[in-house]
């Protein structure tokens, strides 16, 4: 069964006595886009952070391409070169210019020369239409621009999976579209993605499958059509009623 590229099984995670993830099973195949939906506090961020080993897990196994990458003794730096992560709050490095933000990891981690890293960064910036902003500082960009830079900063490491945690939630509504556009591009390019989102229409358009998390449990998984048109579980219906009306 563990044919999937990213496989999460029986994942449990607590903060103190508060169990946040209560045994999650989830498979993501190559080139799939899996959307995590669920109320705030349902454990979406925690799940993504566990996959990237930003949080230690209590039990269960996460494997990537058949290689278990969770637990003690795993080379987390190696794992993170394959798994990119983009955060709700952009987290650009404020003391570095836009292009330096993109170049840092390829140079220091990927071992690229300054010239090669610069070339790669410029190409990626051109892809998101921000070539002219290469030498700006992050706080001179709009939120949408910052988040687009954060996404390509990740892509500069050529990850095999991209984790995205509500990457449009901190944006003004009119800036959401430009970020989703980039994600659609990446999805069409075959990027494997696992993303937490509140953008239901994006999930409907782009997702290969949609997963509903409720209080740390994976309640329902299916194609966007199944989840949005014919949800099986009462909690899913309740959540969607709220989410789609609001």
């Amino acid at each position: 069964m563990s044919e999937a590229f990213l496989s999460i099984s029986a994942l449990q995670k607590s903060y103190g006595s508060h169990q946040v993830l209560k045994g999650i099973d989830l498979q993501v195949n190559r080139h799939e886009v899996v959307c995590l939906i669920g109320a705030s506090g349902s454990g979406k961020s925690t799940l993504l952070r566990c996959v990237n080993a930003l949080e230690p897990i209590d039990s269960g196994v996460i494997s990537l391409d058949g290689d278990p990458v969770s637990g003690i003794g795993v080379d987390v730096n190696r794992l993170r070169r394959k798994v990119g992560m983009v955060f709700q709050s952009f987290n650009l490095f404020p003391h570095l210019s836009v292009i330096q933000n993109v170049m840092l990891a390829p140079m220091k981690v990927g071992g690229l020369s300054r010239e090669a890293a610069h070339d790669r960064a410029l190409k990626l910036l051109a892809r998101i239409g921000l070539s002219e902003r290469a030498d700006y500082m992050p706080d001179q960009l709009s939120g949408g621009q910052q988040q687009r830079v954060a996404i390509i900063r990740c892509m500069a490491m050529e990850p095999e999976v991209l984790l995205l945690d509500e990457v449009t939630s901190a944006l003004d509504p009119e800036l959401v579209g430009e970020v989703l556009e980039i994600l659609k591009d990446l999805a069409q390019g075959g990027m494997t993605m696992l993303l937490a989102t509140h953008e239901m229409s994006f999930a409907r358009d782009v997702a290969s499958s949609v997963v509903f998390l409720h209080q740390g449990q994976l309640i329902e998984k299916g194609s966007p059509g199944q989840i949005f048109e014919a949800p099986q579980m009462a909690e899913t219906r309740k959540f969607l009623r709220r989410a789609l009306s609001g």
Partner: protein
Amino acid sequence: MSNPMAATMPTRSAGKISAPVSYRGIAYISAAIGLISIGLTWLGLTHALSFTADNPDLSQWLYRIAIAGTCLSALLLIFPVRALMHMRQADRLVGAGDLVAARVPAWTCRQQGLSGIGYAATLLVLVAAYVFLTTNNFAVQRAFLNPEYMLESALMVLAAAKLNIYITLAASVIILVLSLALALLRMIPGPAGRPIRWMVIAYVDFFRAIPTIIVIYLIGFGLPLTKIGFVSGWDGMWYAVLALSLSFSAYVTELFRSAIDSIHPSQIAAARSLGLTAAQAYAYVVVPQAFRRVIPPLLGFFVALQKDTALVLILGISDVFGQAKYFAANFFNLSPVSVVGLFFFVITIPQTRFVDYLIERQKKGAR
């Protein structure tokens, strides 16, 4: 629900316009305080004349000072006068029923009246200082600010300040290197780093708990007594440098650590998720950001260090203060020590202004 306020609150129904801020009282109070201040200034400035009956020359000068000062204090009446003018204008407009138009002169009246009170209070403090300096036949001025003694000692005293400058420079270098090393040791993660972290914490706690002057005393007199070749027989200045470095490094280590701590964990998460190791995340992301935040308080510590070099006189070293104390004992007068005070004042003020400027600039978020 019954609302007890309802009866007294002005209703906000259409056509009802609220009155301007109250202004008449402040204008009158400001005028009264202005007039009283002029009188007090005259009394305060002429007080010194009562001690100079036998010195007509000096009396003449003090008389001129008194007249000039009082004239100057009369200038401050400009504020209450303006307040009263705006008050009249506001009164006229209120009388004419134009409450909205009255708001501007009423507000201006208040501002001018308050300014008058503020300046009058400051003037009275200055006059009080003058009275303090001159009272009892210029006792305070003679004891602290005798120009003859100040001039006679100034050259030697300021020459001795060289030593304070050397101590400051040497200690600054040691403090910077030692503190950064200690702060980074303090951040070593994991159980393996625990004993090292404890050691740094103990060092910081220890030297922050002990007054700097005690550290100087113990090291300056204690180490030579040990007769250990490595640490005895130094020049006195180097014991002072060592003691100040140990004491200040405790504070600066803590400063570096808290600056590193103040960088939001999401920055580390972002760096780590890009594949940077913990050490790389600190080197390229955390420390550079922390360093900018640390510069103003760091300069503040160096100003404090400069001033604390005066403590080394307890080792019997002829620094700026030691030299001045020697003169003061000879003259039986403190004016040479005032020279030291002035010296520190002159070198410190530009630096603290510069620090304030940096802090201000950082607040504005300019780069």
